[in-house]
């Protein structure tokens, strides 16, 4: 546990924050086959091996795919307790027009168990078991004593009568084509079951038994400066829809962002008049992507004839017919209102008028601005949507004079991070989308992340940097807890030992823990990492420990013991 004297060395030890985290072992994740003879995982139908899945029966391939997803998580987590996934393939409804594909998630939650990092806070059972060092819910497999449940539709097997023959892709190589990659879906859902989820009902702010949860401990609203565990129910409801202002402030995710997320956030920047924007934009699925430095021009509100209908609802600003002010639009950026016709029709008219780009002002509340859907290979200009308030502000400004904007990419902000803090955005759409809100990364993250609300087709099966932030979220919530009294999400140095040990030499000196979670051993390790030779290492340790003694953190005998171990160590 942290002690008083140790906290005085915070500034000195902060430099150790870049040290690598502690080595971890692994976790065993076992798939509990809930299927009966001849069904699901026991389906005897012969199939050819696919995508690295060597199974020769359909049932065997399903089980291998399940276990493969479980093994990916198991290889990177650390727990002495086996994690049991209660799994089955069941013949759920599947017709030519629709099907239920499947399901997965956690079974139990625990609070106030031995080994926890926080009191009065819910943890997913698998993590609670790891921290407790024992099974909090023992019992036979196939009951709620298991940790995660997962079941999927056995009818999705290529039968033409079921979704026209589309099926779960059971390969292990993510080469799913038009089919549904089962391993990716499982990794995502297992992620929720392992701890990537809160237990707040975002629409009401309610929590089970009124207790906080470990995910909410690192959920921060940058507008209020409050974490979700510090909020009232009313504040939770408001924060859940505070788009692009809710972030994850766990240290390990934050430290990993530079290696995972790329620079470049699409924005509409208002060059003049001053005081407007920048505005978030939703990009289009048609036309060229928004790039840097982007397209700069004067904003011109497009005018077109009001279509007589039916249907009713056309306006002179919806961009649904050829523009009557095409000459004014030419060479500039067209502003049109959402509504009446599809986005690509608006883009066609803007392009025909000679616009360099098109901005669609939403006609309904909601944030962040959604993308513009549609397919149109004829569109060659970039398009984007802004929110209704942003659109109204731009229209008001146009009423007072010229508005010059740039539709481009802010290369100073990593995609999926908050501009002022650099922290990773959590998904906070307005209106709230229960479950999708908060317990996922913001979909703006790029490269795409496993724990975004939508599972994107370009995902690999990685759960860790440099591809993915999921494992770092697991690190923050405690999957690698060293029990040093510093919560892992604020612990720069995981893996503390009770005494200072150097290359097998136990000095017997208490390995004090500082406020940032680093220890005397971490300081020694930093010396080892930076030493060109043994002499330099010993010199560094001597300097550091002498400094500790001067500050009253070590006695002379303790200093000598550490230095003696350093001198005898085979480092480097």
């Amino acid at each position: 546990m942290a002690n008083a004297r140790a906290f005085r060395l915070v500034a000195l030890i902060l430099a150790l924050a870049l040290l690598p985290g502690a080595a971890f072992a692994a976790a065993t994740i076992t798939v509990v086959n809930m299927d009966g003879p001849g069904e699901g995982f026991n389906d005897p139908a012969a199939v050819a091996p696919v995508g690295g899945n060597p199974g020769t029966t359909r049932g065997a391939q399903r089980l291998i795919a399940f276990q493969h997803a479980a093994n990916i998580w198991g290889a990177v987590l650390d727990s002495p307790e086996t994690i049991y996934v209660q799994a089955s393939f069941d013949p759920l409804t599947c017709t030519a027009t629709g099907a239920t594909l499947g399901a997965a998630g956690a079974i139990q939650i625990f609070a106030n168990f031995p080994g926890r990092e926080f009191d009065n806070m819910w943890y997913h059972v698998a993590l609670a078991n790891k921290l407790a060092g024992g099974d909090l819910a023992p019992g036979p497999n196939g009951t709620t004593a298991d940790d995660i449940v997962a079941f999927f539709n056995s009818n999705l097997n290529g039968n033409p009568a079921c979704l026209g023959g589309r099926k779960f892709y059971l390969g292990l190589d993510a080469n799913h084509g038009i089919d549904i990659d089962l391993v990716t879906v499982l990794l995502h859902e297992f992620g929720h079951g392992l701890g990537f989820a809160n237990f707040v009902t975002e629409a009401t702010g309610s929590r089970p038994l009124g207790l906080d949860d470990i995910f909410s401990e690192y959920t921060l609203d940058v507008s209020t400066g409050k974490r979700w565990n510090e909020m009232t129910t009313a504040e939770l409801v408001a924060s859940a829809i505070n788009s692009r202002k809710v972030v994850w402030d766990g240290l390990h995710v934050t430290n990993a962002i530079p290696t995972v997320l790329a620079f470049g956030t699409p924005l509409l920047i208002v060059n003049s008049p001053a005081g407007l924007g920048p505005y978030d934009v939703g990009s289009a699925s048609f036309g060229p992507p928004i790039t840097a430095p982007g397209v700069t021009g004067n904003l011109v509100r497009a005018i077109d004839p009001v279509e007589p209908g039916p249907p009713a609802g056309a306006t002179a600003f919806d961009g649904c017919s050829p523009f009557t002010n095409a000459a004014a639009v030419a060479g500039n950026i067209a502003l049109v209102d959402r509504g009446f016709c599809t986005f690509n029709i608006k883009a066609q008219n803007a392009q025909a008028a000679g616009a360099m780009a098109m901005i669609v002002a939403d006609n309904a509340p909601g944030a962040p601005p959604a993308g513009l859907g549609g397919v149109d290979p004829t569109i060659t200009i970039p398009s984007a949507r802004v929110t209704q308030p942003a659109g109204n502000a731009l229209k008001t400004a146009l009423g007072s004079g010229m508005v010059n904007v740039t539709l481009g990419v802010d290369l100073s902000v990593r995609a999926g991070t908050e501009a002022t803090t650099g922290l990773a955005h959590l998904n906070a759409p307005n209106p709230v989308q229960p479950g999708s809100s908060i317990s996922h990364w913001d979909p703006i993250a790029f490269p795409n992340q496993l724990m975004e609300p939508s599972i994107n087709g370009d995902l690999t099966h990685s759960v860790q940097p440099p591809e993915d932030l999921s494992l770092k979220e697991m690190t923050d919530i405690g999957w690698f807890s060293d029990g040093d009294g510093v919560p892992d999400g604020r612990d720069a140095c995981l893996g503390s030992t009770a005494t200072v040990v150097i290359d097998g030499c136990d000095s017997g000196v208490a390995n004090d823990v500082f406020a940032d979670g680093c220890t005397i051993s971490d300081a020694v390790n930093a010396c080892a990492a930076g030493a060109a030779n043994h002499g330099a290492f010993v010199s560094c340790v001597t300097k550091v420990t002498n400094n500790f003694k001067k500050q009253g953190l070590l006695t002379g005998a303790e200093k000598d013991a550490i230095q003696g171990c350093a001198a005898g160590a085979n480092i480097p």
Partner: protein
Amino acid sequence: MHKRLVWPALLGLAVLATAQVAAAAGPGASAADASKNVVSVPVGGMQVAIDARTGRLRQPTPQEARALASELARLFKPRSSAATVFADGTVGMVVDSEYFNFSVVRIGADGHLQNTCVHGQAAADVFLTGGAAALEVK
């Protein structure tokens, strides 16, 4: 099994009034036993649709979506939350379906696969019946 009700001081009478509490002797002894009638906890659903005439993926009709949502309702019946409190203060609870993560998939009007992940039956139904956010074309 000897049972003794032990609540941490922080959980006051208000909590006791709103939760179904089963007491047990110690963690690991009966968290599972307390709710062993609940054998499985279904937590997610996905749905796609395909046009039987053209063979192309498409968004389900409202009737189809309602029918499939009804199946989800059958599979994912909400259950009342019940907490188990152990002698050492450990509190355990079988997760109510309100907190489950549903992965749901549909086909948008542009023919592309749309999917999202939501909590609970109600949110899944909203998505499956076309009411949740997706990439709008209009």
